């Protein structure tokens, strides 16, 4: 069993009218099975309302499944007495950077998590330093979070979670409110944690470019897992992605269109460099 495993997980939101009578049931997560190994970089994609955020909240035991089971580090999330151990194993970063920073100074915010789990003072400082360095925010440790850019705030949030030494970090659309620069900073920091520190990363997003470096990607639609595979496998199915209302990166789309016009290109091209490498020899041959 991997670090995170879900078995036939179903989650239903019950909608009620003003008198509290059941009006209808929305199934946000519908029979999802995942098995994620320690150290992997996992991406979960999907458009708004596909159930990806609801699924993410199950991994941190903020929500517990209506049916099925979620195990985090071998612990069943529906067991109430394990909830703090689970949250320590799987940290979570949310969408809005302003609404998850508690401290008035960057270093105090990063120290908040370790304080909560009762780490001795001296070690808190070591962890704060290590975490801020890991996301490249050590120079800003004395700053007020209000003076940072969105990308910087989000990196502080990531450091705050990393300081609790989780085995796994779930990021729920961490880049949705950021500009392209901030988005790049955050993704770089996340990749660093994954590759250098060996933290399992589950990145939830609707930006296709961000999943290129993932080991495995899942595409969600209407609460179900609609596609699964390596980013390359996912990207090679351009029509299906468009059907699921996801934006395919421009390069991939261009390669796909060229392919349709009869140019011999491999499936699932992810970067501009790759496309160029494929096209140059073709051009030479044509001359």
């Amino acid at each position, binding site marked *: 069993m991997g670090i995170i495993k879900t078995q036939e997980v179903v989650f239903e939101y019950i909608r009620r009218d003003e008198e509290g009578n059941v009006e209808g049931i929305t199934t946000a997560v519908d029979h999802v099975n995942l098995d994620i190994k320690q150290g992997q970089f996992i991406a979960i994609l999907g458009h708004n309302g596909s159930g990806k955020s609801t699924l993410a909240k199950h991994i941190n035991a*903020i929500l517990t499944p209506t049916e099925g089971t979620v195990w985090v580090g071998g612990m069943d999330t529906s067991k109430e007495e394990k909830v703090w151990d689970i949250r320590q194993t799987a940290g*979570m970063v949310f969408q809005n950077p302003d609404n998850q920073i*508690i*401290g008035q100074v960057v270093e105090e915010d990063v120290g908040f998590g370790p304080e909560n*789990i*009762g*780490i001795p003072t001296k070690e*808190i400082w070591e962890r704060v330093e290590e975490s801020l360095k890991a996301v490249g925010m050590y120079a800003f440790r004395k700053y*007020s979070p209000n003076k940072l850019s969105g990308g910087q705030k989000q990196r502080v949030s990531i450091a705050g979670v990393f300081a609790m030494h989780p085995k796994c970090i779930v990021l729920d659309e961490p880049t949705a409110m950021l500009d392209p620069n901030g988005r790049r900073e955050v993704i770089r920091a996340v990749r660093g944690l994954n590759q250098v520190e060996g933290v399992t990363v589950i990145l939830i997003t609707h930006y296709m470019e961000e999943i290129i470096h993932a080991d495995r990607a899942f595409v969600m639609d209407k609460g179900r897992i609609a596609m699964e595979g390596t980013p390359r496998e996912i990207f090679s199915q351009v029509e299906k992605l468009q059907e699921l209302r996801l934006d395919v990166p421009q390069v991939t789309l261009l390669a796909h269109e060229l392919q349709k016009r009869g140019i011999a290109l491999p499936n699932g091209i992810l970067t501009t460099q790759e496309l160029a490498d494929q096209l140059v020899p073709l051009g030479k041959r044509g001359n």
Partner: protein
Amino acid sequence: MLRDITLGQYYQTDSVLHRLDPRVKLAGTLLYIISLFFFRNFIGYLIAAAFLAVVIKLSRVPFKFMVKGMKAILFLLLITVVFNLFLTPGEPLLSVWKLTVTKEGLGTAVTMAVRLVMLVIGSSVMTLTTTPNNLTDGMEKGMRPLKVFKVPVHEVAMMMSIALRFIPILLEETDKIMKAQIARGADFESGNLIRRAKALVPLLVPLFISAFRRANDLAMAMEARCYRGGEGRTKMKPLIYQKRDRVAYLCILFYLVGSICVGRLLL
């Protein structure tokens, strides 16, 4: 105008005052405010002003930051002065229509104004030199004895710290909503008091909705980071009195005794 309130805003710099234990600063501010209400003559206020000036100098916070905080209480100040000026009975000095300014009224009005100004500047110095987290740490530890009476000291301290952290964010948001509503033709400036109060509804409703949403998000983020109240929590910056804190206590004590003696007894 909305961003001018400095109460609860930390000013980042390095000074003796910034490094002081928050408990010293809290006790100092409290004693300073108490002292202001003990004086019977103006020499007392002179000493208090001199003490405040020294403290501001030591804090290395530009004076304009403290003056900015004053704008917020300008209205309160005005009301206090006007009421005291006209409604205190005594020896009439000046009479316009039905309103009479008395000698005693003038005296109280000036004292009240001076007290208020010094009170606000004094507490601004504390909030400008202490991070809210530090401040609440100070309160939590300073008020720990109250736990015996089942006062939720940690919870109150945490709530205050969060409230302080969200003041600038919510102010910015108010500004944004205000501009958005003005762009849609809302009028916050003209009309009588009732009309203006009514005009605030389209400002307050979105602000409250957003504040609730933020509160919900923050609570979730705190729980996700294993926050479960004060039990079993360690401190990143535990409060331990240093030599400078003892010196500061002595200074405050010296000021308190000195100023009250002079301000009350000497004539």
